[in-house]
């Protein structure tokens, strides 16, 4: 019936040309059932790794919090631009309400504050002129005239 070059399907055997290894179908049910048992025994990889993932997430969270805390605590120390002298001066300044009190205190301790002293004197002169109702401009003119006369 079968020739080497059949042209019609009917000329070809309908029998399967494939075969299987020996005892394949005898062993197959056991292999499949074994696979189910193994699957039931072995938890999925995700199930195994789930606690590890949770722990990793926890540690990451704690580390992040610690890092942020260190950043916050360290910041003032890093940003501090004052030295011991500044702190001392700040404490010292707190005792006085104005500059004059500081100058008085310094002078009382034997420290001469020249500029401030000059200013103090100038203030006294101005107060005197105001008190005597002397015009500052007139005084200057008179003084200049006096100087000119003496030069002549």
């Amino acid at each position, binding site marked *: 019936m079968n020739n*080497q070059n059949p*042209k019609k399907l009917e000329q070809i055997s309908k029998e399967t*040309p*494939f075969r299987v290894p020996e005892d394949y179908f005898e062993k197959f049910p056991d292999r499949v059932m074994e696979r189910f048992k193994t699957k039931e025994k072995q938890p999925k990889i995700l199930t195994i790794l789930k606690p590890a993932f949770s722990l990793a997430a926890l540690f990451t969270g704690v580390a992040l919090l610690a890092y942020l805390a260190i950043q916050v605590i360290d910041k003032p120390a890093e940003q501090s631009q004052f030295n011991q002298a500044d702190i001392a001066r700040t404490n010292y300044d707190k005792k006085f309400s104005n500059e004059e009190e500081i100058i008085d205190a310094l002078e009382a301790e034997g420290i001469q504050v020249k500029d401030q002293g000059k200013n103090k004197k100038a203030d006294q002169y101005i107060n005197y002129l105001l008190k005597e109702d002397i015009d500052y401009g007139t005084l200057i003119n008179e003084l200049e005239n006096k100087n000119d006369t003496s030069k002549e």
Partner: protein
Amino acid sequence: MTEYTDQELLKMFKSEDKKDFAFRIIINKYQERLYWHIRKIVIGHEDADDVLQNTFVKVWNGLYRFREDSKLYTWLYRIATNESLTFLKQKKRRYFIPFIDFENHLKDTLESEEFFDGDQIQKKLQKAILTLPEKQRLVFNMKYFEDMKYDDISEIVGTSVGALKASYHHAVKKIENYLKNNVD
């Protein structure tokens, strides 16, 4: 060994203490038919073995949901068919094989297959079948080799009986043309 009907097996499968027993019987009852169906699609024995195992895993997971408004065997065939086609798609993707080359890839598998007992004419027929589009190939195998009813094939592949008849007719024509044009 007692012969159980599909209804009896399904009932047993749904009771926890008889589940394994019932499933083992289902495997014994249908493994050969499903294997040969898968083998004709994927060609290689090792691949067919993988797909058959995956098919029964799917059956195990889905059998409790099976509604008895269709036959158990057509439901099993549908799963086996889907698993086989999915397997081929994955293989194409994994090895970056274009469709046209995949036909040649299956022909090579056929040539190198250790578990092939057919003569040259049968090999030629298998090569001719591999030239068919996927769905025609399925229909041809189920009708020609397994002599399945069109109604059952329709349930398995989800195509109308009329379309299946036309598909089978085209498949036979193409195969006979191949046989005529490829004389050794």
